[in-house]
């Protein structure tokens, strides 16, 4: 019961934040809406018992990536969004596409929810434990892990090169 209530509360916050992201015209408002979405997602992760994921969700997404966004918005001193009509296709093709996509997936999930089980609030167990995830990450997923470190390195260098002023 508590689980469901909490889920609904945070889920609604999530959706509201996401909608606000769409509605707000100023990028910084959108960014803050997204931070709200991420924070409440972190709480939902906690509900699912994934505390490590929740923590890095906050640290990486809210604390690093979104700060970077805010920083860039401030750096470029971006103003409110212009209402241009650059693409009719986005409206004519894209929006129906999204509606169909959401509708079909939603219909599938709703119709199939009976066959899926439920998830529980997980008490103190090995589920979200940092140890377990670390073990998995450094054993089964060692190679992907190392590859992502290379990816990050490349991304850093790319960002440096791109951000450098040519003189």
């Amino acid at each position, binding site marked *: 019961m508590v*689980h469901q209530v909490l*889920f609904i509360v945070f*889920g609604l916050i*999530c*959706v509201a934040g*996401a909608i606000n*992201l*769409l509605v707000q015209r100023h*990028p910084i408002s*959108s*960014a803050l809406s*997204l931070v709200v979405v*991420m924070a409440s*997602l972190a709480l*939902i*992760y906690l509900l*699912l018992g*994934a505390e*490590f*994921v929740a923590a890095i969700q906050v640290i*990486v*997404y809210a604390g690093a990536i*979104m700060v970077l*966004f805010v920083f*860039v918005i401030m750096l*470029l001193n*971006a103003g409110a*969004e212009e*209402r*241009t*009509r*650059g*693409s009719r296709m*986005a*409206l004519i093709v894209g*929006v129906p596409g*999204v509606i169909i*996509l959401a509708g079909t*997936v939603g219909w599938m*999930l709703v119709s199939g*929810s009976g066959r*899926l*089980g*439920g*998830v529980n609030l*997980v008490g103190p167990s090995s*589920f*979200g434990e940092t140890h*377990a*995830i670390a073990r*998995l990450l450094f054993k*089964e*997923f060692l190679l992907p*892990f190392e590859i*992502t470190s290379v990816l990050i390195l490349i*991304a850093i260098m*790319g*960002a440096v090169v*791109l*951000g450098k002023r040519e003189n």
Partner: protein
Amino acid sequence: MVPLSWYLILSGILFSLGVLGFLLKRNIITIFMSIELMLNAVNLSFVAFANYWHTHPVADKSIVPLSGQVFVFFVMVVAAAEAAVGLAIIIAVFRTRETLNVDRVNLLKL
């Protein structure tokens, strides 16, 4: 007890809103944020499934318990890399085009 489908539906809603944001927003930074929103939506379903397989263990060895959480980790790494490079690109674009409106950054065409 919350049905798994609730989480998945929430994930789907967030994802669709992300796609809509991509379609409807003009500011390139906001579009980028929409992408992050989509990634987050996917992460949610990853975690939900991780929990689901944890509470519904199966004999199938191909399902590694907790791997959903590890995938979230990887998604975050990719998102971070993407954010770093993407924002650098945005800054570069802004320097040359003096605008963040994607409708005005449309020279890459025939």
